[in-house]
């Protein structure tokens, strides 16, 4: 198994996710980018499991569970914000401004 290319792909996916989170304004897309980052990490776990045993797989299941929960909560929050503001643009969501 080629570890290098797999890790490379993982890094590319992660970076795309980071860039998306940083640059996009649409909350849904930011949210999807976060998922992308999580899955990039999952890929890394799987790749290393080939070398170091099954604990990586188990971790992947945890991450997926957490991601599912996060998706449910996160989408609910986004929905609530949209109902309130009629917008999912992050620039409009700045209630925490000091």
């Amino acid at each position: 198994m080629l570890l290098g290319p797999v890790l490379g792909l993982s890094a590319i996916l992660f970076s795309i996710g980071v860039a998306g989170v940083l640059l996009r304004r649409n909350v849904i897309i930011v949210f999807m980018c976060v998922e992308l980052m999580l899955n990039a990490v999952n890929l890394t776990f799987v790749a290393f499991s080939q070398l170091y045993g099954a604990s990586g797989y188990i971790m992947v299941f945890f991450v997926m569970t957490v991601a599912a929960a996060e998706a449910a909560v996160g989408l609910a929050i986004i929905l609530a914000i949209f109902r309130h503001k009629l917008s999912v643009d992050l620039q409009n969501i700045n209630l925490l401004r000091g």
Partner: protein
Amino acid sequence: MNFSHAVWLAVAFPLAGFLVNGALALWRPRAKGLVSAVGTGVLLGAFVVSVGVFLDLSRNPSAAPIIVKLWPWIPVDRLQVDMAFQVDQLSTVMLLIVTGVGGLIHLFSVGYMQEDPGYARYFSYLNLFVVFMLVLVLGASFPVMFIGWEGVGLCSYLLIGFWYNDKVNADAGKKAFIMNRIGDFGFLVAMFYIWRTFGNLDFVYVTGHAPEMLQAGGAVVTAITLFLFLGCTGKSAQIPLYTWLPDAMAGPTPVSALIHAATMVTAGVYLVARTNVLFALAPLSSLVVAGIGALTALFAATIGLRQYDIKKVLAYSTISQLGYMFLAVGTGAYVSGIFHLATHAFFKALLFLGAGSVIDTMHHAYHATHSHDDAQDMRNMGGLRQYMPWTFALMSIGTLAIAGIPPFAGFFSKDEILAAAFARGSDTPIYYLFYGMGVVTALLTAFYMARLMAMTFLGINRTGEKGRSHLHEAPWIMTGPLVVLGALSGVGGALNLPHLVGGHAALERWLEPVMAPAMRLGHLVMPEGSTEYLLVGTAVAVGVLGLYLGVRATLGRPIVPAKEAPPDVGFARVLNHKYYVDELYDALIVRPFAWLSREVLWKGVDQGLLDGAAVNGTAWALRIAGGGLRLLQTGQVGIYVVLFLAGALWILRAVIR
């Protein structure tokens, strides 16, 4: 039974009385019968213990001090102070005076305070005072004595301001407390100094080791004794800290008799007598003590000449007599000082209680006629002899005693002091001056006492037509203690009857073990033969002359009641205003101090520095800083993420490296 080791009982009795009466004052203030029984009963118990201790000690009169150790109090490294009582000849004398005279005054109070709503509170304070006074005289070390020293000050404060609804009384209490604190500072410094020098604070150790550890006349012992004496000037009302005592007359009259005449104010004399070795080693300090004493005696006596308040006259008389006692101990005649302390306790308590009876009946008369005249002003009295014959007779004994007329008590003690001062003059001539001041004071003493008696009891009555019918003799519970004190004032001189009249100087021999260390350092050679007769003759002549002049000057011209009296003029006015010393202190110390407190400490330091700079300044600085930092919180999630990422990368870098 061995009473000496049970001496703590003498303290425990009044302490129990204080607790019971204190509880009654809170929950059953009307249970006056119980309060009287407890209040006076505990004093009787303490007196019985004191007599027991005395009898115990008299079986072996030259015994070394018995230290009754109760519990370790301050065990810190080398500083080991026990809660311990010292039973020796000196503390026994004081024990008897405090519990004996104190008991009589408690008994008198039962009658005097009968109608007061604060009856139970009064007796709880009075009992507490006796507790602390006994701790003061029994303490085996400076710190234990200091407990009593502070405690009696507290009780004095509480009892001067007993009728605290009147601001004047509360202020008088405060004044007494604050002036005493100034003196206490001296006591404390002396204690620190003694600890540094001796490494021990027990009386036995200090007095025992002083002659070898201290250089006679050296700076150390002089400093220690002068600081101790500063404490004495506060507690015993000597120049310059005497002004609180006349104001202390704001308290109930039995309090004036007990605390401000017979016991507490003599604590300073007791302290000097207790540390006699230190004072004997410091001739300069002794000179200061004698000088201040003589000066105070003369100064206060002149003020007493022109006071109209019967209690004020007695107050200045007390200051003056305390001056005599300090003249005695400063001269090195420690026994004479204690002797005068004892006789003074008898006759001054008698005079104060007699004055109390007079005030009581005057108060009743004015109360019944709804008059607002001053019940303590002697110009409103006069001719009371026919209404209160017992009080008159007994107070006359007190007057003769204080004026130094033989064979009454004051004659012997005062004569001894004057003779001692005269004897000291042969090696230190300035003592001749002190002797002269003492003789003049004796003349003035006889004069103002004769004036007091004449204005109060002789001549025509000036109470007013209506009030006159209400004047009456005090009840037996008040005259009873007076009779006992009158007897003691009559024969109290027998305590230390000089060889001249066939006595054996009993008190001097009794106190010899305590005074011996100081006597070894310098024995006072008392005058004998013709000189002695001359001194005695002078003292008696001066006393008789003073009495005669006093009566004649007072009755020589008509006295008008206080309301109609014109203000004094000339020097009499200065005397009536007490040389304006209070005003002087007010202008020199109180007002600058108040100004400093108000303008600098309050408005400058507190409001400006603390409130302004420290408290509000901190808040202000935080608000400015917060205002700046607040700009970081944009509310834009993107920026938070960037910062988060930067932080994560930074940590990652640190981990990888």
